[in-house]
């Protein structure tokens, strides 16, 4: 056992010195390899953090949202439905929500207007998402002027800005008072945008949803877990698609790696011939070459992953956030919480190190079977 480990150490030593003796040849490969890992890791880390962020936000959202449909279109919810839903067994709390969208021609962007249930702003005041505040160049204490649905000018004092923690969804948010909301949009007094139900026991959610569909056939219950699932599937799809798109790059990398491994210089060929002649066995050369590949892969993998980690978590994925986030005009200034996920590292490994090794097996073997008596010919 000791001899076995020591032999590996000798072989590793030799392969490292062999790498160091030809920095030029390996540098190009190392750079391409690192770049491939970096690209893939960035995509995976970024979409994964979007997914996590969404899940974190949805974690405190209500179990059930009920919308009214007329002719298959989303319609306003009559206030008296609230009472009837509150009666359903298992529902611990029910309330109506007021929210909507507003297009601000001044910055050519959509805002989301929402009446918060807890601590709504006093009439005449609003709290703004960071994106809106940035776009309008406003701070706390300034006044935000908007033209209402009826064309009247409205002016709100900015009482506060929303925390940046969840900026992904709050960026375009504007929180205001229920009265202001109804006046601003000329919203009917006996209606809500939709209703929200809290169900304490998670196993009853489906039952409650079924009952709603029975008692109020013109409504549509939406489950939180359904939203989560949709998000998950959606982000999974996006990741998959990006990887398929990167497939071409990956293939190019594999061909490049094969070419590098197959195209041994005369000098390297001679060197392997000498090793074989002075007493190295095919297996020894194979193992030595394997260590060489392992050293390269490890370096490229670590470097690529660390670069991607910094890119996504410290530089907010500056390179391709606009493509992957696909938000409206108000880009959230998104700083995801750093994390490392085993599944992801394993997946990444399969997309980079795995193809690299496959591409180099045959060339390495070819080099290793060099005839030991070749140096004498």
């Amino acid at each position: 056992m000791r001899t076995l480990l020591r032999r590996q150490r000798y072989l590793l030593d030799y392969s490292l010195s062999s790498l160091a003796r030809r920095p030029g040849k390996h540098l190009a490969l190392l750079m391409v390899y690192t770049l491939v890992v970096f690209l893939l890791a960035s995509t995976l880390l970024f979409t994964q953090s979007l997914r996590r962020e969404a899940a974190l936000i949805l974690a405190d959202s209500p179990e059930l949202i009920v919308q009214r449909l007329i002719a298959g279109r989303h319609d306003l919810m009559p206030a008296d439905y609230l009472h009837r839903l509150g009666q359903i067994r298992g529902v611990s709390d029910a309330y109506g929500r007021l929210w909507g969208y507003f297009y601000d021609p001044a910055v050519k962007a959509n805002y989301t207007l929402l009446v918060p249930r807890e601590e709504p702003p006093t009439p005449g005041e609003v709290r703004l998402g960071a994106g809106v505040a940035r776009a309008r160049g406003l701070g706390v204490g300034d006044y935000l002027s908007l033209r209402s649905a009826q064309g009247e000018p409205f002016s709100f004092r900015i009482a506060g800005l929303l925390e940046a923690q969840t900026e992904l969804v709050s960026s375009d948010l504007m929180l205001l008072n229920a009265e202001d909301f109804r006046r601003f949009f000329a919203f009917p007094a006996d209606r809500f945008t939709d209703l929200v139900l809290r169900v304490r026991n998670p196993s009853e959610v489906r039952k409650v949803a079924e009952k709603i569909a029975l008692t109020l056939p013109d409504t549509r219950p939406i489950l939180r877990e359904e939203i989560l699932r949709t998000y998950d599937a959606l982000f999974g799809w996006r990741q998959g698609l990006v990887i398929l798109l990167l497939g071409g790059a990956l293939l190019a990398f594999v061909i490049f790696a094969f070419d590098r491994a197959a195209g041994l210089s005369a000098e390297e060929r001679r060197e392997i011939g000498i090793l074989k002649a002075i007493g190295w066995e095919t297996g020894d050369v194979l193992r030595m070459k394997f260590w060489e590949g392992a050293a390269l892969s490890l370096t490229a993998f670590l470097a690529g992953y660390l670069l991607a980690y910094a890119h996504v978590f410290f530089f907010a994925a500056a390179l391709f956030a606009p493509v992957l986030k696909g938000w409206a005009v108000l880009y959230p200034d998104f700083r995801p919480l750093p994390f490392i996920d085993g599944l992801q590292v394993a997946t990444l490994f399969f997309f980079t190190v795995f193809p690299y090794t496959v591409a180099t097996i045959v060339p390495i073997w070819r080099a290793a079977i060099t005839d030991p008596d070749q140096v004498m010919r």
Partner: protein
Amino acid sequence: MIRLDQVSKVFNQGRHNEVRAVQDLSLELETNGVTVLKGPSGSGKTSLLAMIGCLSRPTSGRIHLEGRLISNLPERFMTEVRRATFGFIFQRFNLIRGLTVLENVMLPAYPLAPEPRELRDRALALLRQFRLAERAHNQAEWLSGGEAQRTAICRALINSPRILIADEPTANLDSQLSRELLALIGELADQGKGVLISSHDPLVFDHARVSRVVELRDGRLA
């Protein structure tokens, strides 16, 4: 004792450029003293040396080393025999560029994985013996011809082989260096190493230390 029975070596078998390097050769060789395989280039001496030294396998025929059949061993086992029995000195020194003299000398021992310090001491002792101690940490490509040849001898000796095989060892040396080399080889023979040399250099096969000469022509005994 090395015994060859009807040994042949064919290259590019069955193709139009087939070459019969060695043909039906039978021979017995003592392993002590200095033996020279003599013959013009293309006479098959290098192929024969490679087969005896377990670098390649005969296409047909048998080779026994000290009574053990070695000609049908797969590469894995042939390498083991080779490592334990033979040390090689090549015509073009064949040192690895970019490595130091010391590393070059230690290289054949890597697959055997001895204790690192012990290996280093062994290598340094050999280098001292061959007046290369101050060169130990120089790169191999900076050596003069004589130094390179002596480094190659140290490398051949690192695994303490019983038999030394030298393929045209004087081809790249001037007469002065060739004589020095032959003196060194003589000393090794005195220490009990068997030496097998292939050469067509009269300086070699006329040397006083040579115990026997085998002459080859066209892959057969001449």
